[in-house]
């Protein structure tokens, strides 16, 4: 067991840059949650129980906008669907891990830690993947909770922090995450479809427009993929 600790520490160390990158967002989440009317304990509970940054941010605007519970749940589900791909990618590696560890690994699966474990698997193979991954995820998890609490408790005491336009931080982050993917025609079309429907449908109650827009974007992508495949088949001599 003792020999595993340095490996877990290596996992935590390799996660540090990403943890630093998400720290401002944890603080902003805590601050915005309290500004949206949540008690600080609810902000921390959400970070500790749900542990999904983008879904947590969106839930704030949904809760603040009086969205129905099923809409909040369904939106969370749709936003986090990408984690199914990570889960599928890690499954062959995790096949022999004891069940409790697989449950914990799944609970702690995030975009960031997935990126870290992926890099490790490519450079060092599957040896000691479990302690490495647990070190990475435990560190990332505690960091997220800690800074959520700081934001929730201290954020509102800093005068003007809410008025600074922290709501823009989330929009900027999402825009910066999407933009690099818009280099070929299919994702551009997906974004155009999702963006237009989101605008046209935004007066709908309970933020239903968001779900419609996501569906429109994915449908556009599927259609274009299908057409591309057909063209590829027809081009074959």
């Amino acid at each position, binding site marked *: 067991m003792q020999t595993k600790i340095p490996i877990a520490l290596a996992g935590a160390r390799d996660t540090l840059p990403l943890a630093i990158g998400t720290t401002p967002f944890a603080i902003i989440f805590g601050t915005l949650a309290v500004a949206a009317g949540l008690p600080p304990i609810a902000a921390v509970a959400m970070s500790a129980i749900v542990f999904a940054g983008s879904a947590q941010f969106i839930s704030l605007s949904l809760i603040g906008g009086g969205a129905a519970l099923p809409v909040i749940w369904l939106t969370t589900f749709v936003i986090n669907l990408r984690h199914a791909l990570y*889960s599928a990618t890690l499954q062959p590696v995790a096949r022999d891990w004891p069940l409790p560890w697989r449950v914990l690994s799944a609970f702690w699966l995030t975009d960031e830690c997935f990126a870290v474990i992926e890099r490790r698997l490519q450079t060092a193979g599957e040896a000691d993947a479990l302690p490495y991954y647990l070190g990475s995820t435990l560190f990332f998890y505690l960091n997220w909770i800690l800074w959520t609490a700081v934001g929730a408790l201290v954020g509102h005491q800093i005068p003007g922090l809410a008025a600074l336009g922290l709501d823009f931080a989330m929009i900027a982050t999402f*825009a910066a*995450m999407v933009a690099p993917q818009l280099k070929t025609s299919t994702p551009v079309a997906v974004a155009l479809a999702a963006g237009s429907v989101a605008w046209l449908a935004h007066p709908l109650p309970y933020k239903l427009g968001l779900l419609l827009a996501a569906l429109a974007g994915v449908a556009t992508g599927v259609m274009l993929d299908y057409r591309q495949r057909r063209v590829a088949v027809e081009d074959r001599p």
Partner: protein
Amino acid sequence: MSDTLWAAILGMFAATFLIRASFLVFGQKLRFPPAVVQALAHVPVAVLTAIVVPEAIAPGGQLSLALTNPYLVGTVVAGLIAWKSGRTLTAVIISFAVFGLLRWLT
């Protein structure tokens, strides 16, 4: 803390955990059909764009395509920098500065 809030959080936990556990915990035999995997690949772009666009072009619900809309200008700046450089954090920091400056000016 209200019951509704707890219900929201627990439901969000269930939705998130089910997805994360899909293959890791339950899915030793589970396989997505390739068509589903390809469809899922479009989810991040679709969802994130759907969140950003209304907030950028109509902050507070009022459509504003003018250069004096700091949300719109800031979003475009963030997108352009990230598109060019691929650096998320740089894009966020610079666009936040532009956003703040524009809000202070207008």
